[in-house]
């Protein structure tokens, strides 16, 4: 860990990096080739999903949603450092591949963004919090989960995703501070993707880096190149290992870029700088991994082609399955609100059912 830890200094911190865009390696990654293949699959799968869902949304056949485009290495690299059987994820809303790897079905994600409450359903045993729309609200919760695991003697950790925008909320501060005090095994994974809707990073904070904030909470902070799958994995795995060993929390700032729109309702041409965008598109994280594998001689055009075909099929399957699910009835308003629903709510359920039957 000590290699990446944010060490107070008067110099701005350069993000930790292992892989150049052309696939050249700068250090010793600990990800195996098998892991990289698997990771690449999640990256391409969600890129495929993003493209398909965006197209469907334009035709009015899908809801508004936020794609992970451009941030795939950041999300996949970090989630690969977790053990889904005992570690937890508390997501924001832009981390589809992490959810999938952790066990959340793609079909549910599609269903959720088609507006069906059932889409929110998290399978039993999947250690996941719901998608979070109320920015930063998941950060205290992740801290609590991690702390609770520790109190109960588990060596599981919690990792929470959130954006540069969300980091300005008070919940960020309160959580990192508590994590420092109780030494919670939590990884605060801040995706600095340059934007919060139309608000650029420079308006979000005057800090040189977000990671520096870790100092003020007595936890470790790191900055990593978020478009570098290997580096993100490396840093996150180190933070996870430290947390498991009782070393407490880490704030990881993953420097990346949202190369798509904020969501399918957003028009970034109103505010985005085209040159900046182009520069980041040129750092595409999927290309970078493929360049790496090609350089190693373990990846060919036909491998790439086959992967894309498989992903297209998987996405089609999930979307078709989600679309085949009938529209929910009024019961969907009442299910799961309470473990033990008050009489008044039970009566309302009946009233709603009756009204539905009559119309």
């Amino acid at each position, binding site marked *: 860990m000590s290699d990446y830890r944010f060490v107070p200094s008067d110099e701005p911190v350069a993000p930790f990096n292992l892989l150049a865009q052309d696939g050249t390696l700068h250090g010793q990654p600990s990800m195996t080739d098998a892991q990289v293949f698997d990771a690449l699959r999640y990256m391409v799968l969600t890129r495929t999903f993003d493209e398909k869902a965006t197209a469907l949304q334009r035709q009015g056949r899908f*809801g*508004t949603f936020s794609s992970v485009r451009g941030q795939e290495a950041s999300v996949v690299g970090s989630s690969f450092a977790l053990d889904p059987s005992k570690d937890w994820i508390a997501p924001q*809303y832009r981390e589809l591949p992490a959810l999938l790897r952790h066990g959340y079905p793609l079909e549910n994600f599609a269903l*959720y963004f*088609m*507006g*069906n*409450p059932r*889409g*929110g359903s998290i399978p039993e045993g999947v250690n996941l919090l719901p*998608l979070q*729309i*109320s*920015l930063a609200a998941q950060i205290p919760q992740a801290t609590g989960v991690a702390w609770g695991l520790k109190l109960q003697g588990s060596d599981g950790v919690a990792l929470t995703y959130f954006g540069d*925008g*969300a980091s*300005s*909320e*008070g919940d960020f501060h309160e959580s990192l501070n508590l994590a420092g005090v109780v030494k919670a095994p939590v990884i605060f994974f801040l995706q600095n993707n340059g934007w*919060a*809707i*139309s*608000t650029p990073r420079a*308006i*979000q*904070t005057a800090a040189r880096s977000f990671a520096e904030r870790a100092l003020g909470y007595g936890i470790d902070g790191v900055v990593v190149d978020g478009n570098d799958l290997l580096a993100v994995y490396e840093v996150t795995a180190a933070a996870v290992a430290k947390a498991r060993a009782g070393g407490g929390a880490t704030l990881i700032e993953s420097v990346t870029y949202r190369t798509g729109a904020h969501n399918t309702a957003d028009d970034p041409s*109103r*505010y985005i700088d085209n040159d900046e965008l182009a520069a980041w598109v040129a750092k595409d994280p999927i290309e970078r991994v493929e360049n790496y594998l090609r350089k190693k001689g373990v990846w060919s055009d036909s491998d790439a082609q086959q992967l894309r075909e498989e992903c297209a099929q998987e996405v089609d399957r999930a979307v078709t399955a989600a679309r085949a699910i009938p*529209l*929910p*009835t*009024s019961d*969907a*308003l*009442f299910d799961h*609100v309470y473990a033990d629903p*008050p009489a*008044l*709510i039970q009566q*309302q*359920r009946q009233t*709603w059912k009756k*009204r*539905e039957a009559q*119309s």
Partner: protein
Amino acid sequence: MSDKTMIEAIRECLRQEMEADSRVVVIGEDVGRLGGVFRATDGLQAQFGKNRVVDMPLAEGVIIGSGIGLAMSGLRPVIELQFLGFGHQAFHQLGQQVARLRFRSQGRHSLPLVIRSPYGGGVRTPELHSDAFEAFYTHTPGLKVVAPASAHDAKGMLAEAIASDDPVLFLEPLKGYRLVKDDVPDERFRTPLGKLRVMREGTDVTLIAWSAASVMVNQAAEILAERGISAEVLDLRSLNPLDVDGITASVEKTGRAAVIQEASFTGGFASEIIATVQEHCFYNLQAPILRITAPDTPYPLGAVEDLYVPDIDRVVNEVTALVQESA
């Protein structure tokens, strides 16, 4: 006069008030370059500069809290809360600071502060974006709460709110932003707070609503009329101050009342209206006051929101039953 959508009326009001008074500043998330996620502030930063139309860091607490400070320093801030649901993040500033500053400083600090926020459902927004949370704010002494339903009122009441030395929470029906369109004067004008608007006169029953629900209820009244039921429709527009006299006069005339709100059943502002009506019109009432609301569950995702928010059918059916059963 010209036909304007609600969002156009709001934008025009902001522009004119900013032109008229250099102390008026606009702050919020994405209000500058983008012009707001609903474009209410479109063009204002280009016209008035980055010191008067300010994109803020993403933190509702300090957006409201620093707005209080801006007001104390001599400015007249108009804050855009991106969605009313995120008022929860600033609830301590809204409920304990905004609403009480004048009282706590015994009049030393006025708070000419407007908080504009889109609210309400019906347009398939994500979770936590659609809830009609007005009842939290109408139970907050010191804070005025306005919820217009027409473009005309949106312009006139926003101007009044900006001119007010009391803090005003200005609720805009996001469903109505582009759907609602009516005649609005091109020049500046003000519509006083505290008077309801009779949208339609009637004799059999008084239907009471505000914001987007008023529009819906007025359409329901049309259908009721076809069925031979003459409904008077009151658009409250201003929740605090509340036009108790206006409500009372109508219910005394019709002898029946229904209150329609988007919010969940228990403890919504409808309950307050009912408590008030039964107090003032007890001896005129021919039937219990009807409450048409969402159920006591969280606002759901888009595919079922039409089952959640009261609609024309429900109003027509339930009001018909009310009138017939007490005929």
